[in-house]
């Protein structure tokens, strides 16, 4: 246990020292300022708009812009997670950073678990903080609050933890550059599949919806994100709820407990794959 904490602390310290962390922080500040401006303008306009009968314009605007914020939060969290984990095994071995650590009586699995925990210890609070900040901006500016406050934030953080695990797995086999590209492409593929699912829902295409569901289970970070989107308007019914589900941030897919359990199992499977690959790797 003390080895896990030592290496997690080592990873945490590395994360805080790296320039990518500063870049992400600056981007986050820029994102939050722009998001506040967008909220300000949006809710000013909403006050002057006469919506169609049965549509609550404030709820529609609030849920949509907060859905956009959740996408931004997930994206920034994923960027951070990938850059903290892309070179943990092969990248660090090529730079000569890994060998002095791995010959200590620590164990390769311990190292992987500790580096994942170190990355999650940075990314999860970051995602949580941005999630809460954007929720406060939307809530205080537009007087709209999500139907569920905690679960969507936890699901976003869990989605980022899944991406960190995938990136760790990739780092066992791929160089840092190749791994970074691969994980970003997987992330992009997941998002595209989610949007296709939304389009499928709007067009009542069962095939598109099924493809999106399969992708959401294959890449549970996408399923968790979609489920989080759905949670913010879980109690919104009527025409407003229907229209939100047709939009890109409506969360057409409902995951629920089974998805969350699968995401936990998925983490174990990815971790086991990384552990087996790493234990067979010559350094």
């Amino acid at each position, binding site marked *: 246990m003390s*080895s896990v904490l*030592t290496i997690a602390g080592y990873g945490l310290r*590395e994360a805080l020292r790296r320039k990518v962390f500063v870049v992400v922080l600056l981007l986050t500040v820029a994102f939050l300022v722009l998001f506040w401006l967008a909220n300000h303008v949006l809710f000013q306009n909403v006050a002057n708009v006469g919506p169609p009968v049965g549509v609550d314009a404030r709820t529609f605007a609030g849920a949509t812009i907060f859905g956009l914020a959740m996408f931004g939060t997930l994206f920034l969290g994923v960027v951070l997670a990938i850059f903290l984990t892309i070179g943990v095994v092969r990248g660090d071995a090529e730079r000569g950073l890994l060998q002095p650590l791995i010959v*200590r009586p620590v164990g390769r699995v311990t190292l992987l678990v500790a580096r994942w925990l170190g990355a999650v210890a940075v990314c999860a609070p970051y995602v949580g903080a941005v999630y809460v900040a954007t929720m406060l901006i939307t809530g205080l500016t537009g007087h709209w609050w999500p139907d569920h406050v905690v679960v969507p934030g936890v699901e976003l953080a869990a989605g980022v933890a899944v991406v960190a695990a995938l990136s760790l797995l990739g780092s066992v086999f791929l160089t840092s550059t190749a791994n970074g590209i691969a994980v970003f492409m997987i992330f992009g593929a997941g998002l595209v599949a989610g949007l296709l699912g939304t389009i499928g829902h709007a067009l009542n295409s069962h095939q598109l919806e099924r493809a999106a569901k399969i992708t959401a289970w294959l890449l549970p970070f996408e399923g968790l994100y979609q489920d989080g989107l759905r949670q913010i308007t879980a109690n919104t019914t009527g025409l407003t709820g229907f229209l939100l589900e047709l939009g890109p941030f409506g969360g057409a897919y409902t995951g629920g407990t089974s998805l969350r359990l699968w995401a936990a199992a998925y983490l174990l499977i990815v971790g086991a794959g990384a552990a087996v690959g790493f234990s067979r790797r*010559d*350094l």
Partner: protein
Amino acid sequence: MAALAVRGLAKRYGAVEALAGVDLEVREGELVGLLGPNGAGKSTLVKIACGLVRPSRGSAEICGLPAGSREARRSMGYLAELFRFPGWYSADEVLELHQRLAGSTGGSHERHELLQLVGLEDARNRRVEEMSKGMQQRLGVAQALVGSPPLLLLDEPTSALDPVGRRTVRVLLEELRSRGTSVLLNSHLLSEIELVCDRVAILLRGRLVAEGSPAELARSRGVEIETDEGARLFEGASRDDAPRLVAELVGQGRQVYGVRVLTSTLEETYLEAVGGETS
């Protein structure tokens, strides 16, 4: 019990046979030098011993424990040929990190002693990124010594050092020997190996081609006797043969002006063993 025992060790990387069945022992308190041209398999052997590489065949044991096991890694210190410490760590923090990972209870006293041993006592709080390559290498040697392991595996520990730094490491190795620490020293510097090692092993294309003490390896090349007819070389003769050879020459009516017993240096033995091979 041997500090390091390697039996029939083989390693194949695809079509390349890095090690082809090597037997080698480093006994308790012994300092063994591992020589060989680039690609001979020296680093592979050391990496198998510390669990970084899995052997294709054969076995390696550290203090009787299977190499690579957690227990074996507790009994060894390792300095890789190519290594790096995070640039933002100070020398003291690097050692503290390794103390925690190695389970050493030496605390700041051990860190101070190790930095003193490698001549870095004044750089205790200096960040790694502000150190020269030589200082980093000496810090690497100190890191390998954390927890006072009974066996040290040093892969080219002096490659980036200037003559003074090399001397520091040489003195350190002699100090370690006096403490009973076993060392496997992988180096290209023959003079260094000749000066400090009890035994030398020469690898070529994954095979052990010569082994023995520097004195045993630096064998006699003959006796050269200078007479009134010029210098005559008696190949294969040793120091013990010199009086007889001189008596025979004098008996033949020759004037003898000088006698030299010729021995080969470790460098000559090495070049002969590897056939001038390099890569």
